[in-house]
Structures are given as structure tokens and as C-alpha cells.
């Protein structure tokens, strides 16, 4: 055991003596996590500032205003009244408003059967969702009006007597939409940006260290120290084990640093610290396997460096470290599950939305283990092939 530790400690000592290693594994992910948490803190709450212009001054218009100011929307929408359409449009164009609703004159009259005038939603291209929201509120409101008009029209088409129109209209006006949507909270809590991008950046930079480790191996080969180690009475696996241990410890330290900072400084939230630790350990094992593969496949330092760059970028692109995987198309999410980091990020997503224990980490850990096993297997096969020319 002692030579294994000696090799691991020696490797770690060398890594930590290299200032760029510190930058890559400890500083960069924390800095970038900080940047991300700051960048997304401004978008933490969706909010719409809506200008309202009431040109109708009737009861129907009052109903719409009431809907906008309902307690249900109070957290989401702030409403301000403007006297004229152009003033509201101006406020949407140059701020402070993000969208507007103009209730036309004669809106109330339309309910009673008059010629319908459209409700206008003022939108800005920079606030498409706010415009959608204003549009949705206006549409919901006019929906009852339209439903009543449709009820009468359908009845007439179905054979009701036109003479009955006043009675039909009066009856229809009493109706309420028979299908009502009712929001309900799902379980868990919302995923914070930093809960996702903290580990995502930590993994990105830890994967970066594959290049360090692989290059380190080849520079040892070049400077002859590897031969010197091989001349010592060590078992076959000792060197591999020692070096892997160093890579593992180093990766784990990098991930732990990033996640600790993400949690304590930037407010990342996870349901289960043990789950987080398990994912970090799993990911570090994957890094060890990937490093071994790069070393086995490469023949020179330069090759190792390039190969590891290609591997790392392919993994982080597929795995969703650069983009929020959940926002992407389903195909991208499926591709992510071919990478260990994609699995880990899924685990962090689940942990970040209130799932704890095995339910959150079992599948990701199995996924990471499967990816690692495949990588290790390929490395072992290639190693055998290379040894027997």
C-alpha cells in the first residue's frame, strides 16, 4: 500500500505546485459559478409590467381590470393605467412598461351582442413572455364573452328560433365556462440556476484535468522517471493505482470546492448532501477512467493533450454543461445520457429540485458507473492490443 500512496502523494504534490492547476480546478469554476449566479440573479422572478388603457369605461372593462389585479396574479403582474393608447405604447417602447392592454370603446356593448371590437395587446420584442402573458389574460377574459356569443350562435344553427334570440342571449349571459383550469403545485422546489451551473462548471474544469494527468504521464515517460518507478519492486497495478488515486483525489477536491462554494456562497440548494457527495465521487471515478483511456490511446504528450481536449469538449457539449439541458430538445437530453457528466447533471437537477436519497442518485450513479465501465473496458482492451504487437 505504501508505494501506491507514495505515487499518489507525489503526483498530488506536483499538481499542487503547478499554479495553473490551481487556477483550473479551484479558481476558475468558482469564479464562473459566481458570474453565473450573479447573471441569473436578476432573472430570478418572472415579472410583467403591464400598461392598461381603458377606453370603454364600462362594466366589462372593469371586469378585465379586476382580473389583472386579482390576488392570483399579484406577484406576477404590476398594472398601471394610462389614459391613451399612444401614451401606453410610448411607455412600452421606452420603459418602464413591458406590455400593454388596450380595452376598446364599446367593449361592454359587444357582450350584449354589438359588433365586437378587438382588444389590443401592446408588445415589445424584448419581452415576448410578458406580451404572451398580457395576451393570455386578455384572451381569458374575452373568452367568456366569446363563449356566450358562440352558445347563442350554435343554438341558432342547431335550429333554435331566431325569435328567441333575446331570451337565448340573456340565458347565455348567465353561463360560466364549464371547464376551469386550476393551478396546483407539484412536489419539490424550483431549480435554481446556480444549483445546475455550479456543478456543471465544476465538472467541466475537472474534466479539463484529464489533459493534465495524461500529459503528466507522458512527461514522466519522457524524463525517464516512469522507467525508474518500473525498476522498483512494485506490482503491475501499483503505478496505475497510485496515479489513479491522485487523479481521483484531485478531481474530488475540485468538485467539492466548487459545490461547497456554490452552496454556501452562491446559494445553490440540494435536497441531500450525501447524494451530492455520491455524485462527486462517481464523477471523479469517471474522470479516472477517462484519463486512463486517453493515456492508453495516445502515444505522445501532444496527442494526449489534443485527444483529451476533444474528449472533454465532446462530453461537456453532449452532457449539457454549456447549456441548460432541460431547456433543450428531448433528443439532446437523451444524448446527454451517453455521458457520465450528463448523468451527474441529471442527478444534480433532481437533487436541486427536492428529490433526495436513492431516488435522486441511483440512476445517475448507475449511469456514471456504466459509462466508466465502458471506458475502462475499452482502455483495457486497447492496452492488451497494444502490448501484443
Amino acid at each position: 500500500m505504501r508505494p501506491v500512496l507514495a505515487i499518489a502523494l507525489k503526483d498530488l504534490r506536483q499538481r499542487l505546485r503547478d499554479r495553473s492547476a490551481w487556477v483550473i480546478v479551484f479558481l476558475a469554476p468558482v469564479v464562473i459559478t459566481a458570474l453565473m449566479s450573479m447573471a441569473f440573479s436578476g432573472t430570478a422572478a418572472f415579472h410583467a409590467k403591464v400598461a392598461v388603457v381603458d377606453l370603454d369605461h364600462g362594466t366589462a372593462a372593469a371586469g378585465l381590470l379586476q382580473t389583472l389585479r386579482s390576488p392570483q396574479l399579484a406577484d406576477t403582474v404590476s398594472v398601471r393605467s394610462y389614459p391613451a393608447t399612444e401614451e401606453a405604447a410610448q411607455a412600452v417602447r421606452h420603459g418602464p412598461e413591458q406590455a400593454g392592454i388596450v380595452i376598446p370603446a364599446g367593449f361592454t356593448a359587444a357582450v350584449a351582442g354589438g359588433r365586437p371590437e378587438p382588444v389590443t395587446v401592446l408588445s415589445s420584442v424584448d419581452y415576448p413572455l410578458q406580451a404572451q402573458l398580457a395576451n393570455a389574460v386578455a384572451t381569458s377574459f374575452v373568452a367568456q364573452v366569446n363563449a356566450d356569443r358562440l352558445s347563442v350562435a350554435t343554438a341558432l344553427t342547431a335550429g333554435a328560433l331566431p325569435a328567441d334570440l333575446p331570451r337565448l342571449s340573456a340565458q347565455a349571459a348567465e353561463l360560466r365556462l364549464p371547464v376551469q383550469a386550476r393551478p396546483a403545485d407539484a412536489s419539490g422546489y424550483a431549480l435554481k440556476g446556480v444549483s445546475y451551473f455550479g456543478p456543471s462548471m465544476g465538472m467541466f474544469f475537472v474534466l479539463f484535468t484529464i489533459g493534465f494527468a495524461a500529459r503528466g504521464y507522458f512527461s514522466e515517460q519522457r524524463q525517464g522517471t516512469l522507467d525508474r518507478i518500473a525498476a522498483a519492486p512494485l506490482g503491475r497495478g501499483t503505478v496505475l493505482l497510485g496515479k489513479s488515486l491522485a487523479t481521483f483525489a484531485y478531481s474530488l477536491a475540485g468538485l467539492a470546492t466548487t459545490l461547497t462554494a456554490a452552496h454556501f456562497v452562491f446559494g445553490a440548494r440540494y435536497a441531500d448532501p450525501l447524494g451530492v457527495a455520491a455524485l462527486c465521487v462517481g464523477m471523479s471515478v469517471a474522470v479516472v477512467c477517462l484519463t486512463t483511456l486517453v493515456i492508453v490511446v495516445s502515444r505522445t504528450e501532444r496527442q494526449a493533450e489534443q485527444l483529451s481536449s476533444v474528449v472533454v469538449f465532446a462530453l461537456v457539449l453532449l452532457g449539457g454543461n454549456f447549456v441548460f439541458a432541460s431547456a433543450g430538445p428531448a433528443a439532446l437530453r437523451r444524448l446527454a445520457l451517453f455521458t457520465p457528466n450528463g448523468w451527474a447533471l441529471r442527478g444534480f437537477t433532481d437533487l436541486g429540485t427536492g428529490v433526495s436519497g436513492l431516488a435522486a442518485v441511483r440512476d445517475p450513479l448507475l449511469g456514471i458507473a456504466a459509462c466508466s465501465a465502458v471506458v475502462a473496458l475499452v482502455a483495457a482492451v486497447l492496452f492488451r492490443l497494444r502490448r501484443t504487437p
Partner: protein
Amino acid sequence: MATPQAAQTIRPQQDAEPLLDCSKLVRRFGSRTAVDGVSLDVAPGETYGLLGPNGAGKTTTIKIVCGLLEADSGTVRVAGLPVRAAPGPAKRLIGYVPQEVALYPDLTVRENLLFFGRLYRLPRRRLERRVEEVLELIDLTARGEDRVDSLSGGMRRRLNIGAGLVHSPTLLVLDEPTVGVDPQSRHAIMESVRRFGDQGMAVIYTTHYMEEAERLCDRVGIIDHGSLIAEGTPRELVALVAEKDQVQLVASGDLTRYAEACRALPEVEGADVDRSDEGTVHAVVRDARSLLPRLLDLAHANRVQIRSVEIVEPDLEAVFLHLTGTALRE
């Protein structure tokens, strides 16, 4: 360098059980046979020089001895232990000093020594004591806490050897330890190698410097194209070509007639005139020293003015030339 304790002088025990015993080593790389049936043995306390040009198979042989390469056939035993079958115990006896400076430039001198010592599972106390001894031996005690990349080339070379000594090996394997080393450090290195031999350590030493092998080694093996083509003490090897000396006489006068007269002597095997530079007569003779007065008399008799005389005695260089037909250093 400091004197190690118990520096008793042990001369090679040629008849004792050999410490290193290589038998019929063969190693191929693809279609090229790098080592082709090399057998050699080194006795305790003996310094063995493996001499040959670059690419002759020296390093491959060394790597097989140290267990870094497997031989396609043949066996290596260290103190009777087969390196291949029982690598652990055998390797423990070997101190390997690679050709390049195989050290970690970003670690300190002491950290390097401690690291290589730990690989041999030395108990902590003993390891620390040994590191101090080695530091003293290679005269780097004062630089123990300095990083290797801050050392001079000669210091690195010394440390390179030191790192192979931490676990007190009984067989020290040095692969071209003096390549690219300044004369002063080279001297120091050779000095310490000589002392390892004196301490009873068997040393196997590859080089392509003749004078080093001649000065240091109790026995020399000449390797070329993967085969050991001659082996013996430097004296024995020189003796292969040694009955003949070469005499060069720079002279003026009728040199052709003089050379003819020389050839008439029974001890002279050949004499020739070289007019390329000044007039020079080359003569290959047996026992030049006793013959010289008669050569001078003969010159006088032929009215030839001798301006200088040089007797060239054979050395390993000449042996090599004789055996392989090529010069060693090119």
C-alpha cells in the same frame, strides 16, 4: 565527496557466485534484433563495463536486466533470483540509474530521494537516515530543499545516481551516466563509481567512452549489433591486438630505402612511407621499446634525419577498431 563508513576495499571475487548472471538474452523489436544472445555475469564487487556504439543494444540489455523489458528468451538472475519469475526480490537488489536525468524537476532534491526510497518500502526511519547518507555521498546535503530544476547539470547527474542508491542496492546499473556531462562532473561521477566497486557493490556500467571503461572497469564486454563480441579485463582485451605496436618516425632523407631496410629486420612486420604531410615512416613492430635503438641506428646508417618518434600502444579504441572495423566515436 565524503567517505562512506566502512570503506573497506573489496576486490572483485571472480570465482565467487556471480551477483548478476545473464544467459543468452534475446530481444527483438519487430524484425530488428536489438539483443542477440548476450550472456554475461558480474561478480560481487566487480565493475563491469558494457562498451559499444549507440544502438548496439546496451540500453536494451540494461532494461532487461532491470526487469523493464522482457527478454524474448534467455534468463537474468540477480543473486540467484530470476528477475522474470520473482521480480520483487530481484529488483530490490538492483539500483537503476537511467541514461536521462530521471528526476522530478518540480520536486526538491530530498523529495525526489524520499519518493524513490518509498517505492522500495523502506521503513520510515531507515529511509530518512539513508536519504541523509546519500545526500552526503553525492555532496548535495546543502541543496536538499532546493527544487531539482534549480540545480546545475552536474548536480542533477549526481542526484540521478543518488536516487538509485537510496535503497542500498547490491547491484548498481548505470546506463551512460556521463553522457553530456562536463569534464569536472564526469570525473566526480567516475570517482564515485570506482568507490561503489570498492565498497563491494557490483556495478554494471554502459558507456561509449573508451577511456572511462579502461579506467573504471574490472572487466569490459564489447557489444555491437546486439552481440557481445569480446569480453575480458581491459588488459586482456588490449592483448588481443597487443603484440603489435606502431612506430611513427617523422624523418627526411631517402625514406623509401629506409623503410626497406626496416622491413629487413625480423621484428618488423611492416613498414611504409606516408608522404602526405611531412615524410613519415609507419612501422608495425613487435615490442617497439626494445627495437627502437636499432631503428635509430638504421636511420643513421641510411643518412636519414629523424625529427620525431612516436610509439602508439594499443588501447580499447584500437581493440574496437580491430574487432568491428569501425571507429567508436563518430
